[in-house]
């Protein structure tokens, strides 16, 4: 049986605290606790972000996809008719959600009813710790929680659709979750097209007024100055949607590519706006067709978070490192968090750099046991207490993370290993010659010369 539970917060929240799977594909008697450990200031509360790591095939994406399935009854790609039956009575989702005064608990699961129809059921329903009827919790979930206190969850698959299709008519106000494995990411831009157009029309109107003023009062500098001041004042006080995107969302991260959002636009109608425009620091616009994959990746994953303003919900990222240079991978976890309000993030990644953004209790490392079943490798010994964790990816070097967390045997390529072995042998030989008082012999000097060359070849080897 799989269980996903949400813990009681001190404010509005919707965060998973536990996933249990009794028997589903590679998972058997699998259980992960997703709360902060003892000794942490949030002891027992749900984790704000979780990072699934593990060899391909260990089920990272499956875990991501079970969450919308059991919390929102939404089937992502791998949950199809063939796999659905495997979840029957095998899966329970225990959840807590709500506000400070209305904390609801329930266990959600799926089974076949007496007619043989598959239904999602809720069990062990509680309100503020007291048992309540299923109807009450369902009523709160449907009428007060979804789309009011909480926005819909968002799923970013491992392969994002980078196509920017202005004719995509996806409606973000409908649907159980926002699933970018089925919908084009670029379409979120439509959400602010109207406000951009309104802003541009106002600006155009003021500029036309200035033109008329100049035409009518070309000798009266004071009048012209006042007209220009009006434009300046309007610019300073009017909300500029594109500038807001630039300042609050994209420019800081685009600067890594020596790019920024083009704020000054020359447009006459909504159709002229098109998609967001990017320029270099010399104000040369970069046509969309020439955007690098990394630029697209940043823009198309950050824009939805900025524009959809997710709140009290769950955000799922499968392989967020795609196409990103390491220095950007280092930043994106905190960056994405900064664009949301009290959301719980789930990441599935193969990147040690992404993993280094997480505390050890936020990492769920999946491994196969001898029977081919998946288990979570615990990073703590004894009690689950912050002091008992043996690794802290936030404090480790990248190569250290690769070796200890990602289980890479060597600290470099096979060629490096061979050279290191050579170096070790030469060191040993030189030491033995030194012990015999032969450290100035031609043989010893030849060894030293080889050692020096290897030092150079191996760069900083220690």
């Amino acid at each position, binding site marked *: 049986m799989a269980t996903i539970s949400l813990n009681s917060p001190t404010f509005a929240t919707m965060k998973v605290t536990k996933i249990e799977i009794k028997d589903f594909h590679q998972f058997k008697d699998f259980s992960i606790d997703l709360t902060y450990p003892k000794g942490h200031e949030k002891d027992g509360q749900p984790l704000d972000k979780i990072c699934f790591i593990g060899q391909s095939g260990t089920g990272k994406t499956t875990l991501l996809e079970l969450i919308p399935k059991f919390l929102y009854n939404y089937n992502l790609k791998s949950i199809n008719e063939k796999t659905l039956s495997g979840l029957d009575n095998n899966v329970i989702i225990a959840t807590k959600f709500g506000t400070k005064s209305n904390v609801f608990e329930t266990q959600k699961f799926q089974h076949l009813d007496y007619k043989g129809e598959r239904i999602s059921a809720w069990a062990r329903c509680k309100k503020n710790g007291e048992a309540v009827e299923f109807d009450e919790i369902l009523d709160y979930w449907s009428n007060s929680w979804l789309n009011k206190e909480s926005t819909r969850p968002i799923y970013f698959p491992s392969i994002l659709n980078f196509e920017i299709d202005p004719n995509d008519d996806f409606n973000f106000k409908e649907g159980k979750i926002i699933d970018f494995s089925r919908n084009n990411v670029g379409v979120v831009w439509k959400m602010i097209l109207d406000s951009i157009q309104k802003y541009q029309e106002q600006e155009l109107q003021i500029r036309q007024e200035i033109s008329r003023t100049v035409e009518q009062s070309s000798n009266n500098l004071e009048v012209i100055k006042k007209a220009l001041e009006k434009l300046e004042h309007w610019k300073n006080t009017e909300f500029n949607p594109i500038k807001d995107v630039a300042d609050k969302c994209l420019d800081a991260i685009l600067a890594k590519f020596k790019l920024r959002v083009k704020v000054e636009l020359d447009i006459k109608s909504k159709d002229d706006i098109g998609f967001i425009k990017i320029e270099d620091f010399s104000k040369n616009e970069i046509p969309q067709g020439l955007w690098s994959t990394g630029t697209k990746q940043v823009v198309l994953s950050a824009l939805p978070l900025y524009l959809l303003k997710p709140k009290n919900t769950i955000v799922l990222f499968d392989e967020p490192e795609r196409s990103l240079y390491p220095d950007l991978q280092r930043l994106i976890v905190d960056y994405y968090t900064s664009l949301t309000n009290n959301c719980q993030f789930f990441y599935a990644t193969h990147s040690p750099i992404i993993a280094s953004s997480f505390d050890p209790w936020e990492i769920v490392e999946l491994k196969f046991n*001898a029977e081919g079943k998946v288990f979570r490798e615990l990073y703590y010994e004894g009690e689950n207490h912050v002091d008992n964790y043996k690794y802290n990816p936030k404090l480790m070097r990248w190569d*250290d993370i690769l*070796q*200890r967390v990602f*289980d*890479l*045997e*060597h*600290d470099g390529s096979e060629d490096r290993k061979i050279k*290191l*072995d050579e*170096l*070790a*042998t030469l*060191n*040993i*030989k030189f*030491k*033995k010659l030194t012990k015999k008082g032969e450290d100035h012999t031609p043989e010893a000097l030849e060894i030293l010369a080889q050692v020096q060359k290897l030092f150079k070849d191996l760069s900083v*080897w*220690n």
Partner: protein
Amino acid sequence: MQKINKGLARRRSLKYKNWEEKLVMDGKEHPADYNYYKTDIVMDLYQCQNGVCAYTEMYICVPELFAPSNWVKGKHKIEKPEDVKKTDHFGELEHWDPSLKKTHYWLWSNLFMIHASINGLKSNKAIVDYLKPDMPDYDSAKYFDYDEKTHLFRPNTEIEDEKVRDEIQRMIDHVLFMNHGVVRRQRIEYINGLKFKKQHGQPISVDRFFTAVGVCFQD
């Protein structure tokens, strides 16, 4: 890979010893599913190996677990279960010669404790006979050198036969995992920690990586 003394003088699992010796003397096969003595064997191996993995010398068992106070009349019994648990170790039983598993599963001379992860990596790969660490004439320095700068084990550079050196190198890399990245990293940190203590005049005690520490501190 340190020399391991599994001789009578170090033995505490005397009940198992008598049982096993009688089976051997009578030429009987060992019952493969017989677990009555398993904890005795594991704990006695740990105390013979000083609580470290037989191959990598990684620390894998708290010493309280195999302490003399936990032995009663030749059987292991934890004196203070509130202080130490039977599971406070990371080791797994290693059968030196896997072919003996079927008939002599509990043969003392064929058993070592090694780190569970190393056991998983090693699987059933055979180790050359002359590297069996409990043989009377086994001497780590005879087969292995240790470079304290790279912290890598190497076949003894004085072994003239290149084939033997290659064989030992293969053992180091692919069977014993003495230079596995995680093992090496732990070794470097441990030895650096000891050096730091020594530099600052603090007392040092060694509870793992005995062979490497011996080389690094021999002067």
